[in-house]
């Protein structure tokens, strides 16, 4: 509004108006930036759900007995529901695609600020990577984390040469080029996302039999990298500091190939540090895994039936070797798992249903 001529102009008024204008302008700018950023960040709801996993943890009630940390060798291979039903173990998988060792370490560090589980299970396949691999995977693990010193450190350790820290602080700077690729999903899940996992477990009911799994190509050097060792040691120390029992596992996935030489190194490390190490590949028969039925992609990952078998087997180890007692009967937990079971069964049924109709796409 224009001030009429001759009307007295109060000095204070001008200053107040100006200050207000600046505040409102800044608020509008920030709000617009925030909204655009929310819109452009990938939602990972229908195609690459692995990107949505890390963030789901924050909505959980955090008093888990066991936390699994690692890549797809955990989050597709073991069912926390079965651990609960059969052993009364309340567990959660903090998994993400191609999670690198330092990312696992910082996830553990972050998890311990929320809760102190009794056992931390870590998948050792990540030892094979000694340097940041792919920007897309970094993003899937890191974008979902809430801001904390651990996230900052994890970003710094993970960035590839092309990446910039500021693009993690303002992901809009990273994802702005999606403007022409936005889909319905980006609007649909603008505010609220749906859950893609069951306590971190990513369910698949379909199956694709494993054929001949090629033996690994001989490597020039079987020694794990320095970075990897360093973070494994840090993880060991961290768990010790928090009084958490660290358990190392190699999941029974046939591929990527797990070399004998690698296994030896982990065995030695475990012995040296007094840690438990289970190579579940060797226990496949004991677990009762049938690679003709229990995998959905020819031996890389287990399907629902495989993951339940593995949970059933591994729960026994956790209960016996780690001395975890059953928490069945705790009313609050029982109630929450009842709900989870419904969702779990519902999802399994939905997938099977779709599969029968032939419209199952795996997602």
């Amino acid at each position, binding site marked *: 509004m224009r001030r009429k001529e001759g009307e007295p102009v109060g000095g204070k008024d001008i200053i107040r108006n100006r200050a207000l204008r600046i505040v409102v302008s800044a608020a509008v700018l920030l709000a617009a930036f925030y909204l*655009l950023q929310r819109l452009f960040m990938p939602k990972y709801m229908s195609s690459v759900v692995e990107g949505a996993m890390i963030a789901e943890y924050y909505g959980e009630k955090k008093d888990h007995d066991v936390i699994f940390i690692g890549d797809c060798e955990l989050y597709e291979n073991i069912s926390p529901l079965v651990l609960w039903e059969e052993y009364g173990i309340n567990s959660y998988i903090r998994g993400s*695609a191609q999670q690198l060792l330092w990312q696992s370490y910082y996830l553990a560090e972050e998890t311990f600020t929320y809760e102190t589980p009794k056992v931390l299970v870590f998948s050792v396949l990540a030892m094979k990577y000694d340097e940041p691999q792919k920007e897309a995977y970094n993003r899937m693990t890191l974008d979902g984390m809430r801001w904390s010193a651990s996230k900052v450190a994890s970003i710094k350790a993970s960035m590839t040469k092309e990446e910039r820290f500021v693009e993690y602080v303002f992901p*809009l*700077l990273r994802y702005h080029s999606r403007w022409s690729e936005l889909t319905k999903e980006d609007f649909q899940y603008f505010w609220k996302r749906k859950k893609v996992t069951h306590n971190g477990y990513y369910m698949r009911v379909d199956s694709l039999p494993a054929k001949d799994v090629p033996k690994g190509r001989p490597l020039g050097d079987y020694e794990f990298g320095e970075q990897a060792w360093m973070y494994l040691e840090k993880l060991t120390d961290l768990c010790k500091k928090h009084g958490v029992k660290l358990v190392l596992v190699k999941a029974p996935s046939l591929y990527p190939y797990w070399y004998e030489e690698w296994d030896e190194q982990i065995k030695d490390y475990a012995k040296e540090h007094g840690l438990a190490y289970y190579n579940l590949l060797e226990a496949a028969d004991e677990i009762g895994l049938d690679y003709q039925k229990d995998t959905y992609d020819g031996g890389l990952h287990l399907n629902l039936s495989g993951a339940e078998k593995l949970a059933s087997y591994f729960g026994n180890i956790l209960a016996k070797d780690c001395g975890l007692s059953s928490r069945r009967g705790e009313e609050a937990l029982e109630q929450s798992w009842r709900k989870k079971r419904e969702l779990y069964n519902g999802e399994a049924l939905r997938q099977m249903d779709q599969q029968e109709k032939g419209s199952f796409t795996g997602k």
Partner: protein
Amino acid sequence: MLFTSYGFLLFLAVVLILYYGLPRRFQWPLLLIASYVFYGASGIGNLCYILATTLATGLLACKMQDVSDAQSKWLKGKGKEASREERKAYKQRMKKKRWRLLLLCLAVDVGMLAVVKYTGFAVSNLNVLIKALGSGRQLTFFDIALPMGISFYVFQAVGYGIDVYRGKYRAEENLFRFALFVSFFPQLIQGPISRFDQLSPSLFAPHKFQTRTISLGLQRVLWGFFKKLVVADRLIGAVGMLTKDTQTYEGCWVVVGMFLYAVELYADFTGGIDITIGIAQAMGITVQENFIRPYFSKSVKEYWNRWHISMGSWFTDYIFYPVSVCKPMLDLSSFSRKHLGEQAGRRAPVYASCFLVWAATGIWHGAGWNFLVWGLSNCAVLLVSQELEPLYRNFHERFQVAGTFGWRLFGVARTCFILCCLRTFDCYRDVPLTFRMLGSVLTSWNWGELFSPGRILELGLSWADYGVVLLGILLMLGVSLWQRKGSVRGQIAQKPYWVRFALWLSLFFMVIVWGSYGIGYEASQFIYNQF
């Protein structure tokens, strides 16, 4: 540090805060430090070159000043009693002294530029020659990485040296101030080539914090970023493909390439200058304009008065005029008049210096035959149109179209087309190849390919990208048209606050969203590949 890097934005923010936060007497020293930090970031070794230029030119200019001062003192004192002849002889002597100092200054500055910029080119040409003479031996040369912006600051320093020699203004006695003039960071990468008497008053003056100047300056920076990031950088890939893969992209694609390159070059260069002038303005410093809507020129001559103005005027003032009026040139003029007639006599100096200036302009743009040919083709066009002047006059006397809109539009289109053709030497970087490609426009008549979406999308731009480029072109065109009525930012500033705010906020988000920066989101990258 590129203008379009996060590092530069951070650097700029820090400099601006300090600039207005520190006591005002520290403003120009701060800029000097900032400029050296900025230049040092491109390679610590590069600082040697700029220091050498600064020291040589700064000190020698002071020496020239001393000579002039001594001269005027003598003329006012002792010289008063001297005879006219004595005074004249004295002046001559002093002039000669200054001339020697200037020569030394030019030798250092231009010599350095010649060594770092042209050694490789010279040696490779020598090698061709040696081979042609039948010798198996070849000279080896070490390739010196061209220090960022050296062509610009050396020219700026040389201009200053010549001006001091001519007595246009006094030499700057404070070497640090002179160092800032040479290294002022916003114009270090791509000019403009400023003149000391134009830049120095605002460069060294203390500046009060004024919201208006700062916001006007930053608005211009934002507009520069729009041109650079949204338009120019988006086209880099496509232009690169069109000019590198010459087997695939013949015929009509040459024309497409010319057009896209014209857009890219304009957006990139004027955008960069917008950022430069905008930053300077935000600090209260006036840097001269380098472009005045060049693509609206109605002739090539006019274009060169409106495109990269600071370079053109540099060549005119420091090469074209001195060469045209130097003694050998005047002798040439007399000689031609005597032997070839009146007309030839009048033209000889203009033609010869024009030729020289354009050869120099070409080679200044880059060490390569293509640039030389590019410069000389410009020269040829200019001279031919000069010769055709009577013809034009005749035409316009008969047909009264000169002032009409249609005729002006035709002039603009014709000029754009000619310049696009000339620029192909810059695109293909190879003279025979350029001629072949230009020829293919006529020989391989493949315009049908333009209508196959597959071919168009092959250039790495999606339809959405083409849409953004089109929008960018329209915006730039609109702004240029609007600019004819005066400063666009000035006109926007008249509008109510919230209108302005909405306008600049939209531009900001256009840059953020449409800018070609950061790791592109490639869906393919996200396809989960079984790990």
